[in-house]
């Protein structure tokens, strides 16, 4: 995670909406962030907080209709992905950005062999012929730790266990040596022991291949173990962002704080009662004009109703979108400048 390097991915003011019969739903609202080469960015948030939608918006993977990327800029190595033709975008998918999805059971095509599905991107993007692709596919399977790779290439997805299938997904995502790997809840559907295997694998591969990774999850434990930086999303926007140790140590958004508290631990003290965040996350029918978290926030005050907070710097590389200044123990003044 070399500091100061040119970001491989820069996102600015991304807005994505869904058209539904009930009207528009604002799923992603003015999201901006960047990703440096080799960095592992953890993204957390509840379902519906917009974390997957944000990432899929980047490379046009959302079905349209109903989804529509309204505005924003997504610079990948200087190329604005939102302005790309479908053909240019396809060239980015795979060699530029690899994707791993949550459910390994449904994300692989059930009727093609794993080998076929692995060869496909290789032949499309890397200009390999079938033979070369086959060799590379075998290497990839070995890379993600699937034993007996040669033989397994001929197997169908259903012949793999969940963990193994997720490894295959990773192998597919890695096939074209992507600069950025986006992993959308890759271990949520897996057992802890398998999750542990996958996490170790990713750590290892990251060192080996040196790509930037965006890791979406709602499990703070996973983030704590592997991420360099964490980004907390709520209501379609980033509410807090910073180095992982810093954020876990000094969360500066009430949502992050609450989230950290709700997680029970297998070690340490056992709390007599779990703390909860009461209520439900909002569905945004319009671009938010107030803090989306205000209804569930203990700290909320008048300004939260009137204005959607921008992200204020709260530490080194750490910012939070909250009008409450925890360090000062008081609301921020209106004059204070937001940093993004």
């Amino acid at each position: 995670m070399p500091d100061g390097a040119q970001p491989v991915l820069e996102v600015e003011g991304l807005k994505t909406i869904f058209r539904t019969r009930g009207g528009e739903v604002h799923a992603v609202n003015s999201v901006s962030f960047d990703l440096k080469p080799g960095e592992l960015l953890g993204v957390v948030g509840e379902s519906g907080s917009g974390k997957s939608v944000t990432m899929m918006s980047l490379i046009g993977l959302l079905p349209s209709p109903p989804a529509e990327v309204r505005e924003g800029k997504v610079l990948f190595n200087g190329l604005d992905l939102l302005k790309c033709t479908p053909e240019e975008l396809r060239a980015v998918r795979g060699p530029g950005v690899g994707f791993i999805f949550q459910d390994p059971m449904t994300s692989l095509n059930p009727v093609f062999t794993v080998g076929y599905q692995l060869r496909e991107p290789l032949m499309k993007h890397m200009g390999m012929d079938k033979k070369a692709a086959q060799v590379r596919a075998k290497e990839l399977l070995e890379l993600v730790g699937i034993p007996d790779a040669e033989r397994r290439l001929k197997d169908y997805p259903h012949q793999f266990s969940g963990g193994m299938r997720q490894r295959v997904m990773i192998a597919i995502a890695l096939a074209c040596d992507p600069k950025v790997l986006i992993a959308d809840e890759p271990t949520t559907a897996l057992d802890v022991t398998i999750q542990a295997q996958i996490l170790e694998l990713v750590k290892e591969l990251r060192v080996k291949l040196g790509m930037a990774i965006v890791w979406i999850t709602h499990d703070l434990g996973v983030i704590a173990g592997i991420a360099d930086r964490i980004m907390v999303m709520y209501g379609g926007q980033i509410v807090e962002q910073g180095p992982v140790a810093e954020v876990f140590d000094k969360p500066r958004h009430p949502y992050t704080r609450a989230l950290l508290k709700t997680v029970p631990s297998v070690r340490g003290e056992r709390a007599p009662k779990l703390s909860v965040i009461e209520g439900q996350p909002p569905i945004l029918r319009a671009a938010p004009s107030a803090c989306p978290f205000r209804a569930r926030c203990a700290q909320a005050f008048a300004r939260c109703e009137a204005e959607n907070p921008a992200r204020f710097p709260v530490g080194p590389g750490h910012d939070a979108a909250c009008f409450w200044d925890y360090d000062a123990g008081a609301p921020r003044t209106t004059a204070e400048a937001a940093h993004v």
Partner: protein
Amino acid sequence: MFDTAGVKPLIEVKGLKMYFPITAGVFRSHVGDVKAVDDVSFTIFEGETLGLVGESGCGKSTCGRAILRLYEPTAGSVVIDGQDVLGADQGLLRRMRPKMQMVFQDPQASLNPRMTVAAIIGEPLDEHTTLSKAEKLARIYELMDQVGLNRDFANRYPHEFSGGQRQRIGIARALALNPKFIVCDEPIAALDVSIQAQVVNLLEELQDRLGLTYLFISHDLSMVRHIADRVAVMYLGQIIELSPRDAIYAEPLHPYTQALLSAVPEPDPEAEKTRRRIILTGDVPSPANPPKGCNFCTRCPKVMDICRVEEPRLTEIRPGRFVSCHLYDETAGATAAPGATPSNNNTAIQQGE
């Protein structure tokens, strides 16, 4: 909590087996079984929560369903509140149903999408009571209040709710007939972290208020730690460890339990950096073809020769602590100190089979 002497056992499961036959050939001859639940015995005391943990496919859900006789078990006995569940005929079983209820894993799938909330919660009432329409509605509202659902939602359909609210509907349905015993089959697995806490708190609150007994099936060890009084760990259809909660989390005895606990990530970057994990190799073997000897011998970091030959039995090695492992055999016990911290080379990161 160790002392269970004065408390009455509510559920007694003995030698429960749930085999799904495998047939082959032209005449569909019986060639083997998928041993989803293989000789499981345990007791749950009144007012207690027994956590049943294990990886997917280990048979924990099947076990929960077999206890309520949603499947017809192959062998064994289940006695709930003095009544034999497995021996009951259909009529008797139906009359026993109100006493034992279930909360399901997927709140989306377990609610009929074409029924309103009121109809879903009212269904058990239709089946087992003769309440008038008004009485029934009153009861439904009462239940909705109990689980924290707005009464106005009564006429809505399940898809209009979020996961947590759906699970509340499922809980309200389970509560409708004032059961004594509820099997919670992974009730929080499909929910977000913040919502999980809400549901678990609700379950605990209801237990306190209504004196319920839970069998809490989950793969989330941290949640089980929170809610369960005792914890049973299943692996490949068998219980390999059964202990009071604090003991098992403080000092897991079975190598599998140790690995399981070590794999749970901690939401603390500092701790995570230093934490040692036992990475188990490979996948769980197929329950249709379990390994000879100890079921865990193929993945066990401390495997011994005897493990591949002889099947260990679940034995009480300390008061209230049951383990099924040769490490704690009278004879072998000397070689491995109970509760030995996993530290040898065998636990290094490994992938593959």
